[in-house]
């Protein structure tokens, strides 16, 4: 189901994220009349870029509840709100949730997906959307990524056999040196590189340029393209690749680049816990904020439920 079909669907719940990027409202404003209720996870970036405007726009949504991410108890508040959906909803039907991940961090995406799974389990009918950004120039030099760790404890994986080498499956991004630096830090001997292609060719070129040395060292045969606009296909490719690796390697998924790839990694890791590690590497507060605008394209990933060993569905 593509975006045009999806945006006419009806959802029990919309989970939106309010940050400083202009694209934060691109999906929510088009879905506003098709969702019974909205939960907005709020970064509280007052005064930064488009945040204030985003806050106003999302505040005008139907049946909206804001949850501040600075609140230490934000997850339990979120889950409490989700449970109230079960009470309101029709018990015989699955609960349809649209989660717009466009402005969520990989860590937040992981936590939200695990919460949805905990609360709704097999009753969940999840759809994740990702608003593709307008192209902007990548940073010219390496930016220190002084955070490098499993995305969250639940998705850190587990090493039963240290003689099995790790194998990194890296979704490439356009930050120079980030992927190769992460590989060096983890001292991973095997690698598979997933190169995104999307509506704007400039992005793909920037990705190749930023990872020139890594691609050269790993070899073209380790490079696999994936489509930003077809996350279901990406998920299936990723699943097949990772299942093939599990016999000989400890797979580590490192989702740099477009966040829709991160969703595919996180869903796969949840379904196969604790066999797969999802890694995050970030500049944290050293990063320069960018007011990313939507280019109009929306990638749609119908996940279904997040229970183990369930496959993705269209």
């Amino acid at each position, binding site marked *: 189901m593509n975006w045009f079909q999806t945006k006419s669907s009806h959802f029990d719940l919309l989970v939106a994220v309010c940050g400083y990027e202009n694209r934060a409202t691109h999906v929510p404003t088009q879905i506003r009349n098709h969702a019974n209720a909205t939960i907005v996870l709020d970064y509280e970036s007052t005064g930064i870029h488009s945040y204030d405007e985003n806050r106003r726009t999302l505040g005008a949504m139907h049946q909206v509840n804001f949850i501040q991410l600075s609140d230490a108890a934000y997850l339990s508040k979120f889950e409490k709100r989700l449970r109230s959906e079960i009470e309101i909803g029709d018990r015989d039907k699955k609960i349809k949730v649209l989660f717009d991940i466009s402005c969520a961090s990989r860590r937040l995406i992981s936590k939200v997906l695990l919460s949805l799974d905990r609360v709704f389990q097999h009753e969940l009918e999840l759809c994740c959307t990702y608003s593709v950004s307008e192209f902007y120039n990548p940073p010219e030099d390496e930016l220190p990524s002084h955070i490098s760790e499993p995305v*969250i404890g639940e998705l850190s994986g*587990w090493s039963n056999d240290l003689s099995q080498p790790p194998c990194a499956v890296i979704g490439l991004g356009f930050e120079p040196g980030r992927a190769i630096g992460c590989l*060096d830090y983890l001292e991973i001997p095997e690698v598979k590189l997933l190169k995104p292609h999307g509506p704007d060719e400039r992005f793909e070129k920037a990705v190749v340029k930023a990872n020139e040395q890594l691609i050269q060292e790993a070899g073209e045969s380790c490079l696999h393209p994936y489509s930003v606009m077809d996350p279901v296909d990406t998920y299936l490719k990723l699943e097949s690749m990772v299942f093939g690796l599990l016999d000989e390697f400890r797979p580590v998924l490192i989702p740099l680049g477009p966040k829709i790839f991160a969703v595919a990694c996180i869903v796969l890791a949840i379904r196969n816990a604790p066999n797969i590690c999802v890694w995050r590497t970030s500049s944290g507060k050293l990063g320069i904020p960018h007011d990313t605008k939507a280019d109009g394209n929306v990638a749609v990933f119908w996940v279904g439920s997040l229970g183990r060993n369930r496959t993705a569905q269209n």
Partner: protein
Amino acid sequence: MNLSQPLQSRSFEAFNARFLSAEEVSRTFIPPPHYFRLTETNHSVLIGPRGSGKTTLLKMLQLRSLAAWNHPKADETRKNIAFHSIFLGTDVLWGSQLESGSKSISNERKRSQIRRTSFRLHLSLSFIKSLTDARDSNLLQESGLSRFFIDLDEESETNLSRTLSEIWQVDLKVYSLAGLRAAIRTQLTRLHIVIDDLIWDEGAVVPDYVKLHPVSPVISGIEATNEILGQEDRRWAVLCDELEIAPELIRKDLFELLRSTSHSVIFKFSLFPHTSELKDLKGPKSPNPGDDYQPLDLSYPYKEAAYPFCNDLFNGMVEQSSGPSVNSPEEVLGDGWFDGGRSSRRSKASHLKAPNGQIYKRAVRLERQDLGFRQWLKERGFNLKDVDDLEDAVQAPFRKAIPFILTRAEFVLPNGAYRSKKASSLYSGAYSLFSISEGNPRIFINLMKPLIAEFSRVGGTISVAKQTASIDATIHRYKASLSAIPTEGRDDIQSIMQLVDIIGKFLQADQLLERFRAEPPSTIEVDNNVPQEILELAGRAVNAGVLIRMPEERGAGITGEILSDDLIGTRVRLAYTLAPNYKLPLTAGRTIKLSTVLHTRIAARIRKPEALTQYRLPFKGD
């Protein structure tokens, strides 16, 4: 497209020995001097930054590696080695998984038990692997190692596996070493379930096997094995690689064992240079370097000390590439500006001699464009045309200034601005490249691989342009690696690269733009006015190998003193790998305090805030 089978990315293998087979490691092994000391029968701690070859050295103590090693000194080493090694190679992934997966366990005691148990189970698996390796009949064919062969009949194997399972509290279904291995793996899988249980229920009961000491049961198992084998004099060496990855409490447990006098077991650890446990271990239980263990430092504070090893590595790589044979690295890489006078001595033509000496010509160029240099020459009474003829003692201050004359002539324009060219030929040449590698095999291979490939393809001397391109690529990768190391700092200095950049740019400006001096500062003293968070960051930079610890004075010992973990008072220099990046010479001399460097930067920021990048986000983030 076959997505399930990753192709061997051969270039990565060169950077990481951990997952190479024993035979693969031994095939290309070039022993540094430390290796032969490591083969001695005593506790040892191998100290070195990332990429310094610690894993390779430890793996080369294993029976299979020794058996496969082909080297002039291999027979003697096989004959002399008196222990059977148990290699435990942990990795960052395991450490992070253990840390991240168990950190939500609120009961600290239980959390510690989980972490210790994971370590012990992996160590037990390593012990079983060593036992299995020693049962390989191929070992009998290697006369130097046949004494380590273990002939275990079915009854003995049953007896051994039963005994070990009782000591380790393993529920054994099949009484064999393979059965024992499978049962330990099951315990590891269950350990993850125990973690889950403890996260959701602090009061959940942990199984008894989780309460065992992280190492003692393995030592008991080793002693029991010797009894069953009837070889009570058999010595085992527990090799723990990259101990810094293990949780802190395990490191402390292990370091206390360095004081142990078990007849059957010795320990050999590899570790980063800066590890807080060494500092924290005080009192009667603390091990002393020299007395309780042999410290072996793999860093080369002085570049000349790394040359013999670099030369061996170079020859090994040339041989492996099937290129033409070479008599000296200069044949392939040419002479360099920072070769300590080697090329001058070889050609018997002084570089200082007018009118064609290479250094003379650079000095003349600098004299023309640099007022400060002219004043310095005048003050010291040097006439460039006569310098070569001066007595050694009179000439000495000029010789000391040569590295800075070279960089100023190369990088500073007559108007006092930096020359914009990115690549410089100043750092080409065999011994300059050796210095840039820091004797670190990982950097060395990265730097030399394309050059030796070119040499084996076309022969002759590799062009300066190709050498410069390889230097640039190596620096790019090195900086990317440094940028990826997780750290915590203070204010707008949060990462190793930021700290390094501050030091590098300070030295650059001081050496190139300030008034000319024969010996401006080129090393840093970590002093007690540096904030604690920056001290920690400096420690991480030492571990990454980008800050190299230096003895106070040339020739000072590098054993006990340099192992002292207190960074305050330590003299460090920037790795020569980054010298081209900051336009610095390959030399280490006078020292300046780190707090002065930091204060100078703060003062500069107050004067000209826009000149410094403001990285910090002014709002909260997830």
